[in-house]
């Protein structure tokens, strides 16, 4: 699959690794790929971010990601769904933080392995890369570009697509910004 990646797409993957190293994260996640995409310049996804106004709101995107991380990766949709059945996620997170310290829910289980240099992609991040292949195939494109990775991120339910959607980056909007009006 990786032999089909364009230079831009490869830069996203290596950028995600760098991002994970910079933040001492034990695994490479969808978040790291999004941050790498936001860093890319002169690419189709950079153009899409600019036209959607997301590039100017990078701080807000990062805050949204941090907020979700604090809730242990619970998305806004998760939080809303739980509120429907009477569960207040924010209250639970606060309670956990009182006992176990700030950010305890988002701490992940592998912090102790921060010294290892070899980091793996999370299963979810691998699925995103697989999805980017499907997105490319679905569009009849022979190569997988950074744009396909971005579109894959918006297509998969989770924190990253939630935060992107909150900033106007829904699947449809991103698809239009990347490739113009469909069909």
């Amino acid at each position, binding site marked *: 699959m990786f032999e089909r990646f364009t230079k831009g797409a490869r830069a996203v993957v290596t950028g995600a690794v760098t991002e994970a190293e910079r933040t001492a994260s034990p695994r490479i996640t969808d978040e790291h790929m999004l941050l790498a995409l936001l860093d890319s310049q002169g690419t189709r996804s950079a153009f899409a971010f600019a036209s959607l106004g997301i590039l100017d709101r990078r701080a807000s995107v990062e805050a949204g990601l941090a907020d979700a991380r604090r809730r242990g990766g619970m998305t806004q*949709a998760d939080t809303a769904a739980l509120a429907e059945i009477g569960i207040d996620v924010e209250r639970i997170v606060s309670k956990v933080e009182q006992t*176990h310290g700030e950010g305890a829910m988002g701490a992940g289980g592998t912090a102790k392995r921060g010294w290892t240099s070899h980091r793996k992609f999370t299963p979810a991040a691998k699925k995103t890369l697989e999805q980017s292949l499907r997105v490319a195939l679905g569009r009849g494109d022979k190569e997988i570009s950074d744009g396909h990775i971005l579109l894959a991120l918006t297509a998969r339910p989770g924190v990253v697509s939630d935060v992107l959607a909150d900033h106007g980056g829904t699947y449809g909007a991103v698809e239009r910004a990347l490739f113009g009006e469909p069909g």
Partner: protein
Amino acid sequence: MTDATDLAERAGDRDPRVGLRAVAALRRLLEQLEAVQVRSARNQGWSWQEIAAQLGVSRQAVHKKYGRQ
């Protein structure tokens, strides 16, 4: 407007999607809480056996899930 709020607005209370989504979210919340508690117990020197007994699962199950971290 996000797809999630779209969905919430379209979906009535009897829409199975609302309930199923809550269950899926609850599962994710459970996983997070379990990880926090297991980590805390390990930090306090609890054995896998003790943790497993409290969670009502086998020692192997806990160890397989959290042991290599």
